[in-house]
C-alpha cells in the first residue's frame, strides 16, 4: 500500500470538471429554492426580491386545480410503477427459457429498439397511429367490425396510452438487468431441482424468480423516489385540451405557470419544491418498508 505520494493532486484535477458541474447545476440550484419563499422578480433578483413566507404554497393549495394535479401525478406514477415493475421481470424469465441462442439474441435486439426512439417520435407514433380519422388502429378496428374510437380525444384513455406505450418502449431494455442476473444463477440449483423432479415452471417459480427479487427491490425503491417525476417530456407532448383534466401533472404545471401563462418563478419553484419533497419522502418510506419486510434496502 502506498501511503504518501507527491502528485496525488492530479486525482483532484481529474475530479474537477465533474465537481464544478455538480456545484453549478446540482448544488447552486438548491440555493435557488429560496425564491419559493419570495415574490421573485428578475429586476430585484434573488437577493433583493421581497420575502413572502409560504404565501406561494398557500396560493397553490388554495387554487382550484391543486389536488387534481397532485392526484394526477400520483395516479400516473402509481399505475406506471404497478405495470413497469413486473413486466420486464416476466419478459426476462420467458426469454431466459429460450433454447436457441440465435432466436434469443434476435428477440433481444428487437426488444431494445423502441428504447432508442425519442420521446418526440414516440408521441408522434401515438398521434399518427391513434388518430381518429386516419390512424391505423381505427383502420384495423373497422376492418374487424369494431367501432372507431376517439383515443386521443377521450381523457379516459390517456393514462392507458401513456403506460402501455411506455411498456412498449422500455420493456426490453429493463429486462437486460434481470437477464444478466439470471445468467449468474448457479446451474447446480437447477440440476438438483431436475433430479428432484421439478418441472420447468416450478424451477422458474422457485429458483429464477427469487433470484431476481433483490434487484427488483432496489429498482422499485429507486422508482418510488422518482414517483413524482413522471416523464415531463412525454406528458407535456401528449397533452391536448381534451385530456388536460387527467394529464396535467406537477411538472407540466410548473412549466406552464413559469414559462407559458404567468412567468411566476416563485410559484413555479414552490410547486417544484413540493414535488421534490414528496419524492424524497416516498424514497425514504419505500426504503424503510423494504428494510422491514425484505431486510434489504438502499441504506
Amino acid at each position, binding site marked *: *500500500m*502506498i501511503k504518501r*505520494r507527491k*502528485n*496525488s493532486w492530479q486525482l483532484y484535477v*481529474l*475530479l474537477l*470538471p*465533474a*465537481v464544478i*458541474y*455538480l456545484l453549478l447545476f*446540482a*448544488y*447552486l*440550484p*438548491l*440555493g*435557488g429554492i429560496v*425564491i419559493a419563499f419570495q415574490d421573485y422578480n428578475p429586476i430585484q433578483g434573488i437577493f433583493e426580491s421581497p420575502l413572502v413566507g409560504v404565501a406561494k404554497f398557500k396560493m397553490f393549495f388554495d387554487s382550484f386545480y391543486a389536488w387534481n394535479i397532485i392526484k394526477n401525478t400520483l395516479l400516473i406514477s402509481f399505475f406506471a410503477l404497478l405495470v413497469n415493475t413486473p413486466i420486464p421481470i416476466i*419478459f426476462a424469465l*420467458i426469454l431466459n*427459457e*429460450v433454447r436457441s441462442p440465435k432466436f434469443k439474441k*434476435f*428477440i433481444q*435486439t*428487437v426488444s*431494445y*429498439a423502441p428504447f*432508442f426512439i*425519442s420521446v*418526440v*417520435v414516440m*408521441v*408522434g*407514433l401515438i398521434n*399518427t397511429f391513434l388518430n381518429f380519422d*386516419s390512424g*391505423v388502429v381505427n383502420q384495423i378496428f373497422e376492418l374487424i367490425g369494431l367501432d372507431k374510437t376517439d383515443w386521443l380525444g377521450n381523457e379516459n384513455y390517456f393514462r392507458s396510452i401513456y403506460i402501455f406505450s411506455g411498456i412498449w418502449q422500455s420493456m*426490453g431494455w429493463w429486462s*437486460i*438487468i434481470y437477464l444478466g*442476473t439470471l445468467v449468474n444463477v448457479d446451474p447446480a440449483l437447477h440440476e438438483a431441482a*431436475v433430479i428432484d423432479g421439478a418441472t*420447468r415452471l416450478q424451477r422458474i417459480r422457485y429458483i429464477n424468480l427469487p433470484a431476481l427479487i433483490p*434487484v427488483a427491490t432496489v*429498482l422499485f425503491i429507486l422508482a418510488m423516489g422518482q414517483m413524482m417525476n413522471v416523464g415531463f*417530456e412525454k406528458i*407535456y*407532448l401528449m397533452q391536448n385540451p381534451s385530456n388536460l383534466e387527467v394529464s396535467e401533472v406537477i411538472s407540466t404545471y*410548473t*412549466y406552464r405557470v*413559469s414559462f407559458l401563462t404567468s412567468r411566476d418563478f416563485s410559484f*413555479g*419553484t414552490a410547486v*417544484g419544491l413540493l*414535488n*421534490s419533497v414528496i419524492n424524497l419522502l416516498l424514497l425514504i418510506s419505500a426504503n424503510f418498508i423494504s428494510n422491514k419486510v425484505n431486510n434489504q434496502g*438502499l441504506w
Partner: protein
Amino acid sequence: MKYYDSNDKTFNFIINLILIIIGLTIVLPLLYVLANSLSSIDEVFYGNVWLIPKSWTLDSYRYILENDNILIGYRNTILYTIIGTSISLIMTLTSAYALSRRDLKHRKFISFFFILTMFISGGMIPTYLVVDALGMIDTPWGFIIPGSLSVWNVLVVKTYYETTIPWELQESAMIDGCSDFKLFLNIVIPLSAPIIAVMTLFYAVGYWNSYFNSLIYLNDSNLFPLQRVISDLLVSEDITGFGSGSYSEQGMMLKSLQFTSIIISSLPMLLLYPMLQKYFTKGIMMGSLKG
C-alpha cells in the same frame, strides 16, 4: 443431465410463440412507418399502405430534406451530439477514475457529494436561473451543458474500473513513478474500451433524442435540434414550410411527412445500437452491482 421431459416441446412452443408475438408488436409498427415513408403521398393519405410500400417513391424524403428548418436541425443535432458526448465522456471517465481510487483522500465524502445529487434537486426554475445567470440561454451551451453529467453513469464506470482493472497493476505502475495522469491515460483508458463504447452510446442517444433542454433554454429557431423541429410536425401537426403546393395538398402531405420525419430522426440511433449491444449488460449491470 436430462433436461427434456414430455412437456418440454409444448413448453418451448408456448415460450417461442409469446416471444414472436412480442417481437411482432415491436417490428410491425416500425415496418408500417417505414413502408409509409416510402410510398406516394396519395396512397398514404388514403390509408392504403400496410407493410409494403405502394407506388414506391422518395417524394416525402425530398420534401423533408428540402426544408431549411429540418436541415438546420439536423446540423445542430449532429454538432450538439458530438460536442456534448465528448464533454460528458470526459467528465464521467475522469471523475469515475478518481472515485475508484481507494487511496483518494476524503473518498467517502466526495462519493456522497456525487450520490446526493441523484436524490435531491433544486427543480426546473432554480436550474433555469443558474443557466440564465451563466449566460447560456439561447446559446448551444444551454442545450448541451445542463444534464451533461449523469452521476449514475459515473458510478457504473467507477465500478467497472474497480472490478476490471487490477489494483496491483496500478500500484506497481505508481511504484515505478507513474503519475496519476499517465496512469489514467496510458493504463486505465486503454483497458476500458467496452465501458467507453457503451457510455458513448448512452450519452450520444441522450443528446440525439433530447427535447427538454431545447424547450426550456432555447428560443432561437436557428439553434433548435432536430427533435424540436420535428415536434412541430409530429405533435403540433404544423406543416407550413413543407412543399410548395396549395393548402389542401399540404394537408394531404401531413401523414407522409410525419412518417418520414420519424424515420430520418430515428434511423441513425436504430442502426447504431446493435453494434454495441454486447456491452449493454455490462453498462447497466455495473451500477447495481454494489447497490
